[in-house]
Each structure stands twice: as C-alpha cells, then as structure tokens.
C-alpha cells in the first residue's frame, strides 16, 4: 500500500538530453515529447506553449518557435473545424475531441489540443491554425521543451487522477487549476517558469470568504489574471459558480488564501473560459459557460464591489448574456478588439474570431 497522495507533492523535472538552446532566453533542451494527453493550453512568454497533460500528470512547456508578429488585420474563420481535423487525422468527426484552443498573441496563430479517439487509447495531437485558416500539426518529434511532473508516480495509481481544467502564465509563474476525481477540494498550483529542478508544485488553498457564513473548499474551474487598481489579481470562477477575486501576491506555494466573492452567477453556470478586455474606456469580463452562453460582466471598479455577505443575494457584478454567441465551448482573447471562439452545435464546430461585444 503506498501513500500515493494527491495535490501537494514535490514536483520533479523531466527533461531530455542536453542540446541546450537559448529559446526566448530560456534554456530548453531539444528532444522528443511524449504526451499521454493534451488538455488545457496556455501561452507563455515569447511563443512558449504550455500543455496540461492530465493523464501523464505533467505540465509541458514547448517552444513552438512562433515569434513572428502577425499582420495587424489578422482574423480567422474555419467552419466545421472538427470535421476538418478529423479528416486530417483519418477518422470521423465524432471520434475526436477538441480539448482547448489558445491564441499566440504575437503571431495570432491558434494552438489546438485534440484527442484522436475517445477511448483510453486516445492519442493527443497538437495543431496550429494560421490566420489564413491553414491547419498544420505541431510536431513533437524534436522540439525544445521542459516539463514538470505534478505527481510523484502518476502512472502508478490508475484510478486517482487530477484533471487540469485551466492553465495561465502570470508574472513568471504557471498557475494551474485542477479537479480531482476523488477529493473535492481547491487545488490551485503555482509553479515558477522556467521550471527549476526540485521546484515545488505546491498547492494553494483558497477559501472564498465573506460569502454568507458557509464556505467550502470548492475547486476553481477557470480563472483569468486581471489588474485591479495596480494590484494584480485573478478572478476565479468556482464549480459552484461564484466569481472570486484573489490577489496574485497571495498566490504563494503552500499559502492559504481567502478570496473575496464579488458575484454569484446563478445555478447551471458551468464557467469554461474567461477573458478580460477594454472597450470604449471601460473594462469587461467575457465568460463562456456551458449552460448559459457567454456572459459579459462589467469589470470597472471591481475593487469597489462589496463582497457578497448575505445568503440570498444574487447580484454583485452586473452582467448580460450575449445572445449572438451560442454554443461557445472555448474562448480566448485574439487581439484588443477580437475574441477567438470555438462554437457550434449539431456536431459541427466553427473556430472563428468575433468582435468583442
């Protein structure tokens, strides 16, 4: 019987053989990357793509060598992208899952994490969609990379697993939200990047306080970095739907953090992705939900919203639902005026840019 626990482990570095390079000023050895799965994606500095491998229990940083700035009027529309990807992979559209999409803000290339197959033998594939719509595979045969293991021996326990639900790179750290298939607890992790040998992927416990009297350690589902009056914070959406503000300065390994609940968004909201943007001198949050569509929230003066303290309040930050954006499965910021959405229904999905509402 082994103590094969859970969130708060030593993280170990797994790298390949030397051949050190100076990609983007970060030493990353070149070699083959073998992902067990590809889920949540995030863009880091200078074209570094972070891939959440839940089955392999690791975060992999890939230098996708993508640092050429795009033209200013870049846009993207790929209709039936799931059918197109399936055709490239030699299978039917119902045999693939698009796990996440992320925009490289430099080049406006879009990275897509795909699962070819839906069984336990599914193969992860990373694709790149260029602004014109051309799809290519990101080859992992020889690529500068670095990875950090979230578990000591992720393959040993076949049953216990943590699904990485969101990744973001903020100020030299990779923030990771995960959801265990056994424990119900908050497990945001903060790992400095470049990953250091023997760095600790230690968890942070977050309680969203000032919210009625009763609190849980509910897991963070998705989050977005945001600056409030010069203070860097993340806005985190929980599995039980409140929107919580947490100062980034508090997100230190091993810390226990008390966040402030600023909005409760009602039942059936299952937040997927959030972006923050400015329009007409005002700040907004755009949030994709699996049930209630895309919600636009006012983000100005977030710091002035009083924490929700009564049990029955449903207000807090005001929001509206964007009727034109139905069936949005993933959302990312494309540029200052445009969002990237993966949306659709009846089995056919489109990947396209839309003006920020």
């Amino acid at each position, binding site marked *: 019987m082994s103590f094969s626990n859970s969130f708060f482990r030593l993280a170990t570095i797994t790298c390949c053989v030397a051949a050190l390079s100076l990609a983007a000023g970060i030493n990353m050895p070149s070699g083959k990357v073998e992902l067990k799965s590809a889920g949540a994606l995030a863009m880091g500095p200078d074209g570094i793509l972070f891939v959440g491998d839940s089955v392999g229990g690791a975060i992999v940083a890939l230098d996708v060598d993508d640092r050429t700035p795009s033209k200013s009027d870049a846009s993207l529309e790929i209709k039936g992208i799931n059918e197109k990807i399936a055709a490239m992979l030699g299978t039917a559209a119902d045999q693939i899952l698009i796990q996440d999409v992320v925009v490289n803000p430099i080049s406006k290339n879009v990275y897509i994490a795909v699962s070819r197959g839906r069984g336990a033998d599914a193969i992860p594939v990373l694709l790149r969609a260029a602004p014109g719509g051309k799809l290519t595979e990101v080859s992992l045969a020889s690529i500068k990379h670095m990875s950090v293991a979230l578990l000591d021996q992720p393959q040993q326990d076949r049953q216990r697993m943590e699904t990485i639900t969101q990744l973001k790179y903020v100020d030299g750290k990779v923030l990771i939200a995960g959801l265990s298939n056994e424990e119900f607890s908050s497990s945001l992790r903060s790992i400095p990047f470049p990953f250091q040998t023997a760095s600790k992927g230690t968890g942070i416990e977050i309680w969203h306080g000032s919210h009625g009297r009763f609190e849980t350690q509910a897991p963070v589902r998705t989050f977005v970095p945001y600056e409030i009056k010069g203070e860097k914070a993340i806005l985190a959406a929980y599995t039980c739907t409140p929107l919580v503000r947490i100062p980034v300065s508090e997100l230190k390994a091993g810390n226990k953090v008390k966040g402030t609940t600023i909005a*409760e968004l009602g039942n059936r909201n299952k937040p997927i992705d959030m972006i923050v943007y400015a329009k007409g001198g005002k700040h907004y949050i755009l949030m994709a939900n699996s049930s209630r569509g895309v919600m636009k929230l006012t983000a100005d003066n977030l710091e002035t919203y009083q924490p929700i303290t009564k049990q029955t309040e449903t207000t807090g930050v005001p929001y509206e639902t964007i009727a034109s954006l139905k069936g949005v499965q993933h959302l990312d910021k494309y540029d200052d005026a445009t969002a990237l959405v993966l949306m659709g229904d009846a089995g056919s999905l489109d990947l396209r840019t839309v003006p920020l509402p």
Partner: protein
Amino acid sequence: MLAALLLLAAIQWDGGVFRISGWEAATEPPAGWSSIFSVYAGPGNVPPLLGTYSLESSSLVFRPRFPLSPGMHVHAVFQPPDGPRVESTFDIPAAVPLAATTRVSQVYPSAGVLPANALKLYVYFSAPMRKGGSWKHLHLLRDGVPVEYPFLELDQELWDRDQRRFTVLFDPGRIKRGLASLAEAGPALEEGHNYTLVIDRNWKDGRGAMLAEEFRKEFRVAAADRTPPDPKKWRLTVPRAGSAADLVIRFPKPLDYALLQHEIEVSAVTGKVSVERDETQWRFTPDHPWPAGTYTIVIRTTLEDLAGNHINRPFDVDTFDPITRTVATETVTLPLRIR
C-alpha cells in the same frame, strides 16, 4: 496501345500506405510531394490527411500519420507534373458490428440510503468507456420524475486513466448552504424522497458499442450529514501477534469508497485493503504475520464521508471561525497494539 496503358500512373492502397505505381519519382517538387499527391479522408472540402512521403524503389509512397478508421471513404489525387491527373477512391472496410457486452459493474456509494447532501457517485464499468458527451446518459428520478441538472456537468469529464470509472459530482451549488443556486433550483436530493439513478444503454464503450443493459440504482434520501468523520468513534478488530489475521475497522457511517482504498494505512506494514459492508468497514490483510508491538494507523484528513465532510472538517464551514491552517499533508493517527 497496350504499352501506353501499362505506363499510366495508378494509386494503390496496400498495407495502410498509398503508393503511386507506373510513375517514376525523381526529385521532390519545390512545393513538396503534397503539391502533386494528396489523400483526403471525409466528405466536402477537407484538408489532406496528415502523413509522410517517401521514395521506395522509385515509387512515391504516402504513409498516413494515423491508421485510417474503419468505414472511411478516402479520395486520393495524384497530379504528376508531366502527365494526366489520376484520382482514386478507396473504402476502408467497415468494422464488424460490435456486441454490447460492457455493463455498469457497480455504483458507489453502495448503500440504499444517501444523505441529502451526498456529493459524489463513482460509476464502475466492466470495460473501458468512451470519453465526451457522457452527461446525457445519466438521469436522476425523484419519485419517478426526472430531476433537472442534478450533477455538475463538467466538460472535462472525471474519468480514471483506464476510463473504467466515472466520477459524478452532485452540483455543489445545490448542496452548499447559502448559495443563490440553492434558492433558485433547490437541492437535487431531498430528505424523505425516493430516487433512481438511471444509466441508459446508449452510453458507448471504448470500442463504440452500446451498454449491454440499462442500469438502475434505487436509493432513499435521509437528512443531510454535516458531521465530519471522527476516527475516535471507529471500532477496531485487532489481530493477535504472530497471526496473519486481518485488521478490521468499522465506521459508524459509510465513507468514500475510492478514498478508503488509500487514505488509511498502517505504519510500516504492507498489505491489501478491501472495503466492505456498504463502505462502513475497512479490512487490511497484511502481507506477513503481525509481529507483536505498537503500530500506528495513519488516516489522512482528506478522507471524506458521502457528503464531502473531511476528517475534522465539514464540507462547508462557518467562516466566522478563523482560518489559520497552512497547506500540508495532514493526518490523524490511532494507536494499534498487537500482542
């Protein structure tokens, strides 16, 4: 005439690769082999198959990056720089119809009574299942009437690595006290009512076959449980020194089946764990006979009951209590004397 026909290029599909016969490949065109030879899988305007090109005995060969799925219709186009365009279609043989043999082997908690604030279900299958779109196959009936959205329908489904166990969370927003969603939709589970969990046959297994049969689990709902499990109230059956008898711990209420597999251990003793009596009993079979001595039973505080109450900490806590703990691996212990 005959000689001319023999010289015509043709596309062959054999052993999973596409080969151009009757055309001698020399140097790769500036725009790559894909500019003259591409294979398309699927209807409509789709990009070509991913794959690699090679020259084998002067023949141009295309190897798809992945094996083509059964039942695919494939269209190959070869446009030599110096000859007529050649197009061929190939039908990848369809898979033989699959027998529906996979079934739900167990659902935990196994008890027939659940607390109104029950948090989790584990659905075990007899074979690996297919990921994605699982929620539509899970239904909850209250006194025979469907309950709307009782579960936390995560897009990133909580499977184990072998996709044989599916973790289902009741929507915590409808459990946790003080949330708007609870007022809006009410709790999914209400004390005094009878419920049926229905898993329909249309859920596909990893091979794409339906389940052998529908699965139903009936249960009654009792009062909410907001009391953390207390190891001081557990009853131990202690083996004798020199025997290889089991150490048995009885709990006054059921605990989480999955967490019981690994959240309790006996210091420095290896053995096998089994969970019995509707998750109210933990049995430890040592690998070797017990030497006399003093041992420690170590219990991680992450161990939960059916309502997500941890050891020493309820599912939802009163925030007027100070939160002073730091994150650490926390355990409680019970002494064990073997004589």
